[in-house]
């Protein structure tokens, strides 16, 4: 009797999980199918549930040209390159700025220290939506529109990064640094050769989180890029939908969607351990 209940429990767990996983995967599968048919089949509402013969053609067209019969766009490879540049710059920039600040706060005592720390921490509370027009104005006054600097710099402040690294630095045994100091190592050398290597797992976790954060930005790139050549992929793909959805080359949009998701999804799948560790150990 007990065994039967146990068996049923496992069976229902598999059932729920498979159903859930299928719902998660379904739109992506359909995107693949959509990317493998031609404009006419999809446009007439005749697309079947199985893949067609044009996947490679459509992917290549999106990658190299980006424009179809009805939509005019930039080659997807340019938008992907923009996204990659933005994601890496944001992740690296945030980590560097956060690490320097955390190092100063943990290992030095100086006037206004707490004031500095709190003024960075308070940015946790100021999402872009809260200061959208003035931020745009500042960026435009500084001539940062349509530039990588404008796309990345405002996203580089990270209160979370500073908090995480402050915690990590504090857990490093003092003896390690005292010993290095006795050996004549200065603060910068200690930073580079002792502190950073010790917190490498935290840096990896932060990098995954921030890379995805940078790649998935929407509102800020939307404001700051008017030149299609500067668009990130997330902006570009939404623009491809255009105003009237009757005028969309769906097979190209879906090919673009597939290309847009590939890199971040691979990063998340392969660095899953770091991601989970980073999220659950730092955000709480």
């Amino acid at each position, binding site marked *: 009797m007990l065994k039967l209940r146990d068996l049923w429990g496992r069976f229902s767990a598999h059932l729920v999980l498979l159903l859930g996983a299928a719902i998660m995967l379904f739109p992506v599968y359909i995107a693949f199918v959509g990317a493998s048919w031609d404009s006419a089949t999809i446009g007439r509402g005749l697309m079947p549930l199985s893949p067609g013969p044009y996947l490679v053609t459509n992917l290549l067209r999106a990658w190299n040209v980006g424009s179809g019969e009805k939509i005019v766009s930039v080659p997807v490879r340019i938008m992907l390159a923009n996204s990659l540049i933005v994601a890496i710059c944001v992740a690296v920039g945030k980590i560097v700025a956060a690490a320097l600040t955390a190092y100063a706060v943990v290992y030095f005592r100086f006037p206004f220290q707490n004031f500095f720390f709190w003024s960075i921490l308070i940015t946790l509370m100021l*999402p872009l939506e809260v200061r959208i027009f003035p931020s745009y104005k500042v960026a435009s006054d500084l001539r940062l529109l349509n530039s990588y600097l404008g796309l990345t710099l405002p996203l580089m402040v990270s209160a979370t990064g500073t908090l995480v690294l402050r915690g990590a630095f504090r857990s490093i045994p003092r003896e390690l640094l005292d010993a290095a100091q006795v050996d004549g190592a200065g603060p910068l050398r200690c930073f580079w050769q002792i502190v950073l290597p010790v917190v490498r797992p935290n840096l990896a976790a932060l990098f995954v989180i921030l890379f995805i954060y940078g790649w998935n930005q929407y509102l800020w790139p939307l404001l700051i890029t008017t030149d299609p050549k500067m668009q990130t992929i997330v902006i570009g793909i939404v623009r491809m939908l255009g105003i009237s959805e009757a005028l969309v080359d769906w097979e190209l949009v879906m090919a673009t969607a597939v290309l847009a998701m590939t890199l971040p999804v691979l990063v998340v799948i392969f660095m899953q351990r770091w991601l989970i560790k980073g999220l659950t150990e730092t955000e709480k």
Partner: protein
Amino acid sequence: MKPQPVFRNKYLPYLLVLPQLVITGIFFFWPAGVALYQSVLRTDPFGLRSKFVGLANFMRLFSDPYYLHSVKLSFWFSFLVTFLAMGLALLFAVMANKRIRGTRIYRTLFVWPYAVAPATAAVLWVFLFQPQIGLLGRGLKLIGINWNYYLNATQAIALVILVSVWKQISYNFIFFLAGLQSIPQSLIEAAAVDGASSRRIFWRIVFPLLSPTTFFLLIMNLNYAFFETFGVIDALTKGGPAKATETLSYKVYVDGMLNLNIGSSAAQSVILLAVVILLTAFQFKYVERRVHYA
């Protein structure tokens, strides 16, 4: 107990905090200050002249039926997204935490959407629910539903909620699974030996022990529903039809960037700021409590 500083250096620490401080100053405090300042001004449409109007921008907002509609919508929307995304994620996490085969594969199958941008997720679902060519859109029509989210407000809101929930499940799943894994198995086994049903074990033991995770996620999900769903709305409905999906953060954008109604947009920003401060205050209070329990 404060640890002694390791280094003595007069200028170096300032140099170290400088990069972050400069960016924070230019892109956070300056714009936030400007938003506060503009919220009490009224600027003519050409941006040439502005005059001090006190709280008039705020008063106008609270007597504006569109704004009140947006407030109501945002709260309902955020509540539903939070409830559904957390409920489903909890269900999947509980199942994935059982002693069954393939848990690692299941974990990956639920974690990967974390990588998908909200706007990209919206594009995927548009392809499914587009009334003329979408697979599910056509399916709904076949079973007699007059599906057209471009015209039907309820359908538009439902679709925005669906996409926002789909996108957020993976984030919640990660936290719930981690939370479940930290609950000692022996506790659950002991209750099972005592003859407690699995439902009772869940509600009496597991769920209360999960409450720190749940509370943290509650704040994060409300925050997500309020702000990060911007991309979903912009890709799906652009706030339409007839402002039916214009949440507070989307309205700030429409009024400020598209209609150039800067005073009103700034006032809305300040109100949103108050919402964020409230959420953050809750979170900090919770963090303190957590320290107590730990």
